[in-house]
Structures are given as C-alpha cells and as structure tokens.
C-alpha cells in the first residue's frame, strides 16, 4: 500500500489538484501463490533431468543431447515468458483512492485494460471482508464498495489491511459536503 503521495497520470481522468491518498494492489501472497504454481513447471525441468540421468542416460550422449538441450532451451524461454506475464498482470492491477473518487484499474488480460472510476458521492455501502487462514494471519481480504453508479459494485480484490481501506473510504465519504452525499 502506498499512502499520501501525489503522483500524476495514474489514470486518464486524474485532475491536476486531485490528491492521491492510497494506491493498493493485491497482497504479495496472491502473487506468491502464482509463483509457487509457476515453480511446478520449473520443477518439471529438474525432474526431466533426473529422469534422463537415471532411466535414459543415452539421451545425454551425442547426438541425442542436442535435441534435449534444444527442447530445454525453448521450454526455458516460455518459462521466462510465463514469469513475465504473471508479474505484469499483478503489477498492472491496482486500486486508487483519491480525495474525489475511487479508481479501479483492472488488467483482465494483456490486451484488456479497464479503468473504472467511482465518485465518492455515489458510494452507498462499504464492506471489508477477511477470510481464510492466510487472509486472517497476513491481514488481507476484499473490500466491496456498493455504488449508485452504472458499475454497481467495486471490488478491491485481496488487498492488504482491508479494514483500513474501508475506513479510509468511509471517512472520505463522511467528509463530503451534505449536498454531495447520495442520501
């Protein structure tokens, strides 16, 4: 989580004097889980090396070793590509809270980028949810923002310290002038 900074050009509709209060991404544990899944494919490489050494040592001799090395190189290239995509998808998904609105930047796929903005006055309800063993001990979970806008619900997906995020949004809503609140 990043608090109290004022970077520019975070999202298309950002105003010059708009204060960015929070930038948050899913908890690092979410990314770690995907990395662990990626490590399974790395393990396959080592498993193949072990299997060849023990059950097919002839594959480590000429001319077969060139085929094996070629396949391993190509496999490694796609492994690195997979790691890059995992990190890019994690890095490009973020939520921003400013003194005027809540912004959800979602990268659904590499070529599918969505920016949803919700003005604070359209907020109807905010709910913080922490569930599961890891969520409880590492303090991450979902924050649901019920709105009166076209997008009826914003979701802060598995963000760190969801209670603090909820409090921040509610405090900002309460700080709005009465004529701007959707009551």
């Amino acid at each position, binding site marked *: 989580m990043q608090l109290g900074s004022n*970077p520019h050009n*975070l999202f298309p509709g950002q105003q010059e004097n708009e204060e960015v209060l929070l*930038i948050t991404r899913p908890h690092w544990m979410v990314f770690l889980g995907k990395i662990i899944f990626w490590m399974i494919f790395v393990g396959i490489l080592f498993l193949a090396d072990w299997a060849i050494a023990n059950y097919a040592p002839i594959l480590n001799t000429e*001319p077969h070793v*060139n*085929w094996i*090395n*070629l396949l391993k*190189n*190509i496999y*490694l*290239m*796609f492994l*690195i*590509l997979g790691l*890059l*995509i995992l*990190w*890019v998808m994690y*890095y*490009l998904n*973020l939520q921003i809270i400013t003194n005027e609105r809540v912004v959800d*930047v979602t*990268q659904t796929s*590499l*070529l599918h*980028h969505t920016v949803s903005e919700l003005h604070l006055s359209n907020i109807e309800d905010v709910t913080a949810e922490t569930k599961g063993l890891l969520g409880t001990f590492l303090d991450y979970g979902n924050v649901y923002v019920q709105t009166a806008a076209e997008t009826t619900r914003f979701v802060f997906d598995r963000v760190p310290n969801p209670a603090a995020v909820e409090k921040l949004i509610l405090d900002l809503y309460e700080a709005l002038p009465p004529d701007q609140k959707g009551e």
Partner: protein
Amino acid sequence: MNAYQPTSLGTTILTLVFYITIIGFAIYSLIALYALLRFGRSKILSMTITILYLIIAAGLYAAAITNLHAIRF
C-alpha cells in the same frame, strides 16, 4: 572457402518448426512488454524489467540456435 552443405528435409522441417515457435514467443513477449510499458505506473521500472527480460531471452535464444545448428540428420 566454405563447402556447400546440403540440408535434408528433416533439417528444413526442424528449422521451420523452431522459427515458428520463436516467432510465437517473440509476438507474445512483445505484447506483454507493450502492456507493461503502456500501462505501467513507473516507466523506469518498466524499462528495467524490459531490458532484463530481453537480455535473458536473447541469451536463451542464442543457446537454442547453437543447439539447433548442432543437430544433424
């Protein structure tokens, strides 16, 4: 003077398959890097990751080419 080395059908097919695979890898990589550079918040971080990735990919590609040329039918 380099002697002419005729290629076999197997070598041609292998080379074709290899380069089609590499083109697919390159296209997918470029899309990922484009998304990172286009939508990434920190341009410095995005450039660093891009350069690092290209160096690693180039090294693996060079190793793959070496192995490809070492294969004889």
